[in-house]
């Protein structure tokens, strides 16, 4: 077992704080790499909450809740004016 693992192959939790900027810069930022990152995130969520023997409604309702939050952030500018205030 090598005593020093090269920086590129370390996972995020094993990277020391001093090494963080160089670790970030070494990540794959090509379109294929970014798509791979989204794919890995999707697979992680899917295999944890949906692709199980007794999947519950929590799997999909977390996605819908995130969708609500996303849309709220998107339309905050117009929603600001709909608060219950005496003077707008």
């Amino acid at each position, binding site marked *: 077992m090598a005593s020093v693992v090269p920086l590129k192959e370390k996972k995020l939790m094993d990277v020391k704080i001093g090494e963080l900027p160089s670790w970030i810069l070494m990540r794959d930022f090509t379109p294929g790499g970014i798509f791979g990152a989204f794919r890995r995130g999707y697979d992680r969520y899917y295999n944890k909450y*949906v*692709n*199980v023997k007794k999947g519950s409604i929590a799997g999909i309702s977390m996605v*819908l809740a995130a*969708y*609500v939050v996303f*849309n709220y952030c998107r*339309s905050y500018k117009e929603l600001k004016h709909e608060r219950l205030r005496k003077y707008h």
Partner: protein
Amino acid sequence: MNENLFASFITPTMMGLPIVILIIALPAMLYPSPNRLVDNRLISIQQWLVQLILKQMLLIHNVKGRTWSLMLISLILFIGSTNLLGLIPYSFTPTTQLSMNLGMAIPLWAGTVITGFRYKTKSSLAHFLPQGTPTLLIPMLVVIETISLFIQPMALAVRLTANITAGHLLMRLIGGATLALTAISPATASITFIVLLLLTILEFAVALIQAYVFTLLVSLYLHDNT
């Protein structure tokens, strides 16, 4: 009030980037594809639903019409899930935009008409003249039938747009009225709240029904022409 009422129908862009593309692509991401013989619950429910719709919808078609089955099932699933996702608070419904519905209706209708003209030319042209019309009325009736043929895609698109938009608008108005009435007289507010509940139940039904109607009509036009 005037500007806020229609603010939810503006196509969402964030700093110039059209996020509406992400919103249109979202329903597709909620349907995972089957990998095994017996999958997880979400995929099993989805497969059962698709089987149900498929059997019901493709009974009336012959072999030629059944080549359209993938298109029709995708259509009803897309419109149904887009409408249902639009009932989530703060979300944007792509089917409220006439441009998108026209983009769905015109190619599908044109496809059915062109299929009819290509394979059964005489029979398709014969649709323009119902049986048993008096000879004098023939020119006028041909004109009327042509108009009714060309209005089919417009009716498809406008029906979907108007139904979904009207439902969302009504919910917004009655919700705003309920909120304003709670300060003035809570009894009337509870009445409007019950109206809002009923309307929400109706909207769920309308979301699904509109999908069904759209697909059914396309399949009917197909049946005429195959």
